[in-house]
């Protein structure tokens, strides 16, 4: 027998409101020795619940209806909790999505890792921990061992999590979206580390992700889940060359999003947005008594210019200051130096009432559609808000006409106007957020990671909507994103940001194909690509 884990006919339901909801329906799969299996699916497809039922950490409301999970000839679902603890300690480990929340903030790294060695011979414990840290690629292990989680970066924390998980040399490692909250360069390091450890320890990995590209990098076999069912289970190379299921095809298609290119950009016309030498510093008092300040340079001397109908993208990892630019342009944060010109008007020179009038020309779409809509207002009121404040001359009848028009434009039903935000899904909410700014007819739209919290297929729909609007109304976009792969397909020009500075900018095709800057090259190399040639 070659397989280490076998899941047979697993069915799981969640009890809520005295109603049973079937979440997992007849899950069947197996994992062979030292094999990496990726579980792919959109949010709510039941992939995390599958993993949790393997390690038996389900919540009380979940109830396994039937089926068996056989791990090294034992049915995990039948054994005692005490025996299960032994298995968790020795044979199955798990890495979670958020390294920030998985580590206890008041324990240092030494004591965190020590926990994984509980009840084992404690000789040379420090040495063992140091070796472990070195094996996950932390070279100054002596220093790190005494630090606390908040002193480490996200990537380091995820390494610590991996170190804890492999401390007992498990036979199976379950990784639940271990790289989703990490930047691409760190993501690559973590993936490489996992592959290296797999070879070294000869363990199997169950890798849960929503990102096909990441899965293609690491896995031997791909399992696609949708609505609690496995709809495809095939070897990696077969899957990426010729997926069987139509949903898998759709997934593959959306992960390489292509925009209908808008060729009507007039490069000779006036710039819609002109940012020159923008600086945003945050000052902090160094000590309570002295009048000294420390400056954090969030944005340090940025130049951007955008033509009408053009899409410009700013790309950078977290902490590079890209969102601060958006906020500075929108006036949500004060700027230290520099000029922001929109439609040839310096917005810092406008007085407040004129500025309010002028605001209808530039608007912003936020990252998280779940927090960008007031949960206590109806959709109609949300969309109307900006319109009523910025264009008070429009009468009620016209407002209703505009609302009906815009709600149709973003692909929602008319009766959505009378609903509340919680009745909509993430993608629909983002459409509402788009509708809210569209009613103002802006010339410039700043999109701050508008798709990063959405599933891939929904992401595609939202991007389609944005590009249709651009073609119709000739709006310019300033896209802010960390996803260079996605952005290279939708933007005309691109700026790469690192530590508050633009390191390279130019036409998208130039930068993607022949990056000159070292950082850009590193960024591009770290991006997981679906390798079709395999």
């Amino acid at each position, binding site marked *: 027998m070659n397989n280490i884990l076998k899941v047979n006919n697993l069915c799981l339901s969640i009890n809520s409101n005295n109603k049973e909801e079937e979440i997992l329906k007849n899950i069947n799969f197996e994992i062979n020795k030292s094999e990496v299996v990726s579980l792919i699916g959109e949010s709510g497809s039941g992939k995390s619940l599958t993993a949790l039922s393997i390690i038996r950490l389900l919540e009380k409301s979940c109830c396994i209806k039937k089926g068996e999970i056989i791990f090294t000839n034992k049915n995990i679902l039948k054994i005692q909790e005490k025996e299960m603890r032994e298995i968790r300690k020795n044979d199955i480990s798990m890495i979670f999505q958020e390294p920030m929340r998985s580590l206890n903030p008041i324990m240092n790294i030494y004591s965190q890792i020590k926990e994984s060695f509980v009840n084992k011979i404690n000789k040379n414990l420090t040495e063992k921990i140091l070796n472990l840290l070195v094996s996950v690629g932390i070279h100054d292990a002596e220093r790190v061992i005494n630090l606390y989680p908040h002193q480490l970066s996200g990537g380091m924390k995820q390494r610590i999590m991996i170190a804890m998980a492999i401390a007992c040399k498990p036979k199976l490692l379950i990784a639940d979206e271990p790289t989703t909250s990490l930047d691409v360069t760190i993501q690559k390091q973590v993936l490489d580390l996992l592959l290296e450890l797999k070879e070294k320890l000869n363990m199997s990995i169950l890798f849960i992700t929503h990102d096909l590209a990441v899965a293609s990098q690491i896995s031997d076999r791909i399992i696609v889940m949708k609505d609690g069912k496995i709809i495809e289970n095939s070897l990696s190379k077969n899957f990426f060359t010729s997926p069987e299921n139509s949903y898998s095809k759709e997934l593959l298609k959306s992960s390489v999003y292509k925009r209908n290119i808008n060729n009507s950009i007039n490069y000779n016309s006036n710039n819609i947005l002109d940012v020159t030498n923008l600086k945003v510093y945050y000052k902090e008092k160094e000590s309570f008594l002295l009048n000294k300040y420390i400056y954090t340079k969030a944005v340090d001397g940025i130049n951007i210019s955008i033509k009408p109908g053009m899409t410009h993208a700013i790309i950078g990892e977290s902490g590079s200051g890209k969102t601060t630019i958006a906020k500075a342009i*929108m*006036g949500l944060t004060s700027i230290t130096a520099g000029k922001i010109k929109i439609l040839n008007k310096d917005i810092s020179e406008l007085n407040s009432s004129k500025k309010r009038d002028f605001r209808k020309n530039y608007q912003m779409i936020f*990252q998280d559609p779940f927090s960008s*809509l*007031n949960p206590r*207002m109806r959709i109609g009121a949300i969309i109307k808000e*900006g319109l009523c404040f910025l264009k008070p001359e429009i009468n009620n009848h016209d407002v209703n006409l505009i609302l009906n028009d815009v709600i149709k434009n973003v692909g929602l039903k008319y009766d959505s106007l009378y609903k509340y935000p919680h009745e909509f899904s993430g993608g629909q909410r983002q459409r509402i957020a788009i509708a809210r700014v569209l009613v103002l007819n802006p010339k410039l739209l700043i999109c701050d990671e508008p798709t990063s919290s959405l599933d891939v297929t929904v992401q595609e729909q939202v991007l389609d909507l944005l590009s249709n609007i651009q073609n119709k109304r000739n709006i310019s976009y300033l896209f802010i994103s960390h996803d260079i792969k996605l952005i290279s397909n939708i933007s005309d020009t691109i700026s790469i940001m690192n530590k508050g500075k633009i390191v390279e900018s130019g036409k998208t095709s130039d930068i993607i194909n022949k990056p000159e800057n070292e950082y850009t090259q590193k960024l591009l190399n770290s991006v997981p690509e679906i390798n079709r040639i395999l």
Partner: protein
Amino acid sequence: MFVYLLTDIFFYLIIISLLIYILYVRRTPDMLRTWSYVFKNKTGIISIVVLSFFMLIAFFDSIHVKKKILNNDTNQFIYSNDIQSLLDIILLPTYENFEKSYSSPFSSKLYSKETIKLKDGSEKRIYPGLAYKGNHNKYSKNISANLVITAILSLVKSFIIFLFFYLIIFYRTLYERKNNIFYNFKNNNILCITFYILLFIFLLLYDLSTQYYVLGTDKVGVDVLYKSIKSIRTGILIGTLTTIVMLPFAIFLGIFAGFIGGIVDDIIQYIYTTLNSIPSVLLIASAILILQVHMANNPLNFENIYERADLRLFFLCMILGLTSWTGLCRLLRGESMKLREVEFVQASQTFGLNKFSIIIRHIIPNIMHIVIITVVLDFSALVLAEAVLSYVNIGVDPTTYSWGNMINDARLEMSREPVVWWSLFSAFLFMFILVLFANLFADVVRDAFDPRASKKYE
């Protein structure tokens, strides 16, 4: 003639704002859904019925009238100096006559022996019989048989009244207006049963009060049950009026501190930290003393003793409110700081909305759940605070009926042998019921409004 005392007016205002809030909730679907959780919850519906019963009593006790009497000398109608409430008129049989001194519950004699001159001139030390009640068994000579008959009679009476109400109100909601929020309530039975039990208790006590002193009499022979019922208004007023005083401070200062930040935040934080560090008993004591000096210096401003007592009650609410807003203020400051960074607030900033409209449109609706939870939780704490303050003599006026005053009076009698326990017991009993149900209600409300609490709809 109707008389409006200061606290009456505020009590009416509270009732009116409660009604407005109910109307508002009925028109807002998501609020309606949250509140319907409270109504569908067993504990919730029971405590709502009990609390509204208390509220009703307090409301009847807040409608004051002056009696018209005929002046025999001038043959003209004049208004008496005595102010009565509607509740007093309803409860007339319980307090129209006074006994001489203490008597225990259901007793027919006084509690202490007295020397009585008999008809033949000899003197004897006996327990004298009560003058007005205790000896008039209505239905049977035997006291226990009499009690049973009274109970059965009130059971029947309350059932008839209950049926009447049931047919009018519940029939309408159950069968005629199917889209009504009351329709399809699983706990309609519980609502009815609670209502029925309360009605029964009320009628039973009423009937018994015409025959006995159910909870005994106090030192000057006043029915203790009557005193306890009259104290309900004081307790509820302190619980609600104080919150009304406290809310504007807490909400506005909290939001300004959290949302505007900077120097405004510093100043507001400074104020509430200072206020918090002064012992509130000290503040309350000094404020009440100042008021007493003021009243002693200007006796002409007050028509009668009721107005003085009422002003003191009002003042107590004010000063309690002024000292208790800091906790809620701090909570709201934190919450609005959080909301300031949320994207929908930033989105409206990009529309150029000014700070005031953002506060009204976005911040206040999103912090109301905290306000409601705190208000309901604070209510019971304030009722208890009144008892403590009256006990140390800085609470309400000694002439005002209140549980704190009852406990204070009973304190001296605890050392006498045999002990006079009923005064303390009935104050405890009524306060316990009110605070218990207020707390149960608060629990359910918190479950309903707290987004993190696990909710079971239906």
